[in-house]
């Protein structure tokens, strides 16, 4: 892990316009992602995990305000979308253009970034469809998205994202719109694709049990802040932050490897328009101390591993 990191975030803050005033989506995120590494980012909805992905993809709305640094040391500049960075979105029913054939949607990536002609790109698209597990791809390449099932569409979306061989693949809850059995298949596909190509994967999910499958490291996001980062094994076996512990316990209680939202932690996620004085998790924390409500805990560790909690000695 001594290679030049691919992504390096330091003190990243993002403020987005919202219907009830600006929302502090990210409140100081430090994170490092190495080449070829698979990092899973876990958090409830509203924790800022999608915002983090859009920041890396350079697709935040123009009105978003950014502070802190986003660097890509291994590239020396932000990655070129499509060529060096691929993005898989959550809902495969919405993320493919309904009026363009799947072949064209894959091929346009190759035409744009590989300088291929349309004929060659179409042939390559057939190969990619085959790789992501579409049967008889030569007969399906000119079909429109509505002729594919949800799982198949997500496979196609993945083929689009990896078509040009990016260094970094971003996936935003790629399985939460799919059936449980298919979820595992899609994760398996993503995992094997990035491993055979040496692509770094940043996968966002709210489902810790699912994350365990394909993570080298896991980062836990709460209210716009990373509360704990650690290699997958240690984090799942010895979670240190009370929120992580609650997440792991929930996943274990349910005794399953499949999905389902986290509903077992009492209380509600904090109001994203208000900035908490102390630790954002304190109101829901069973072990909160007096100073948890007034003083934000410092980060102990670095971008690769660490925790932010008053209860955990540095």
């Amino acid at each position, binding site marked *: 892990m001594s290679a030049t990191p691919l992504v390096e975030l330091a003190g990243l803050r993002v403020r987005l316009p919202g219907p009830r005033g600006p929302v502090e989506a990210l409140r100081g995120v430090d994170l490092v992602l190495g080449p070829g590494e698979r990092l899973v980012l876990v958090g409830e909805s509203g924790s800022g995990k999608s915002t983090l992905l859009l920041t890396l*993809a350079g*697709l935040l709305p123009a009105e978003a305000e950014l502070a802190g640094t986003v660097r890509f040391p291994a590239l020396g500049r932000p990655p*070129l*979308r*499509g*060529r060096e*960075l*691929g*993005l898989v*979105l959550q*809902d495969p029913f*919405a*993320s*493919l*253009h*309904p*009026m*363009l*054939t799947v072949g064209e*949607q894959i091929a*346009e*990536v190759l035409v*744009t*970034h590989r300088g291929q002609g349309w004929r060659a790109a179409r042939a390559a698209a057939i190969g990619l469809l085959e*790789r992501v*597990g*579409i*049967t008889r791809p030569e007969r*399906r390449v000119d*079909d*429109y998205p*509505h*002729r*594919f*099932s949800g*799982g*198949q569409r997500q496979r196609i*979306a993945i083929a*689009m*994202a990896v078509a040009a061989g990016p260094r970094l693949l971003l996936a935003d809850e790629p399985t939460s719109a799919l059936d449980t*059995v*298919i979820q595992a*298949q899609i994760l*398996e*596909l993503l995992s*094997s694709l990035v491993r055979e190509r040496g692509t770094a994967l940043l996968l966002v999910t709210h489902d810790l049990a699912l994350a365990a499958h394909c993570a080298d490291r896991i980062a836990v996001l709460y209210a716009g802040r990373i509360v704990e980062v650690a290699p997958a094994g240690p984090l799942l076996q010895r979670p240190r932050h009370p929120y992580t512990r609650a997440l792991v316990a929930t996943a274990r209680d349910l005794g399953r490897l499949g999905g389902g939202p986290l509903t077992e932690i009492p209380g509600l996620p904090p109001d994203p328009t208000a900035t908490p004085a102390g630790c954002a998790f304190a109101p829901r924390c069973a072990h909160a101390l007096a100073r948890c409500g007034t003083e934000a805990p410092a980060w102990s560790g670095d971008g690769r591993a660490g925790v932010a909690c008053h209860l955990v000695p540095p």
Partner: protein
Amino acid sequence: MARELSEPAVPRPAPHPSLVLARRRLLQAPLVLLIVLLGAFLLLELAPGDAVDAYLAGLGGDAGLVQELRARWGLDRAAPTRFLLYLLGLLTGDLGWSVAFDRPVRAVVLERLPVTLALMASATLLAFLVGSGLGVLAGARPGSLADRLLSSLALVLNAMPSFWLGLVLALVFAVKLRWLPLAGIETIGAGHTGLARLLDTARHLVLPATTLGLVYAALYLRMMRAGMVEAWRSDHVRAARAKGISRRRLVLRHVARSAVLPVVTVLGLQSATLLGGSVVVESVFAVPGLGRLALEAVVQRDLALLLGILVTSALLVVLVNLLIDLLYARLDPRVELGARGP
């Protein structure tokens, strides 16, 4: 590798809602047309005086002549009988007798129909091309200067009375600049034939078609822009942006593609108002079409002719809407017509 292990083959999709709608519309069309006929017939029954009064208004005539004419035109029978006879006549393509022209209504209508069809087609084409083209320019960057200028232009055009726009255009391009003919559908007495005649007619159509089309162009511009604004917020455009394709391709192939379908639907819905608008534009430019014929029928109180025009227009509107439904089915891949299995 993982090959669709647990996923069943996709079943053939159910017919798309718009196709179901098209079939329904086809089944309902005869009933709707019958209601139109009955309504129009009843309306014109309300009119004071009948065809004979209109016919003799300028000539005068004794009671005997009135009686004879009423008998000849079947006006001496009761209204329900006449309605049934009219329906029977319609089945054989007989629309009755025009007193104003002293010819069968069908002949008069058929003579004027091609001109109106040409006007409607060219106006629609112009409206669609100009409207959606400018709409793409506006929607390419919502909020930009180009967008604000074009949206304001559309707002003004949308509020423009077509007959007034026609007068202004005629004043500028026909009277002052003398680029285009002021009125009519062809140069009278020029004796053009073949291609020369076609070009002559096209030159005569430019001003009326522009007048009629510009108002709709404004509508399509606004719709196209609104559709694109919505498309920019969609997931598939976000995914396309993440693929790093060129802006040109993104705007034209992805964003505009989603916005064009609603415009096509409205194209059909607007055919009725377009036909109504042609009445005004045809009389501004003295184009001898169906619209001006309607005005002549009103002025001369030729009720049979007016009824014939109403019926023909309704039929035309129904046909155009069916045509647009089919076009829609071709444009939207989600509508499956054939039996092509996966």
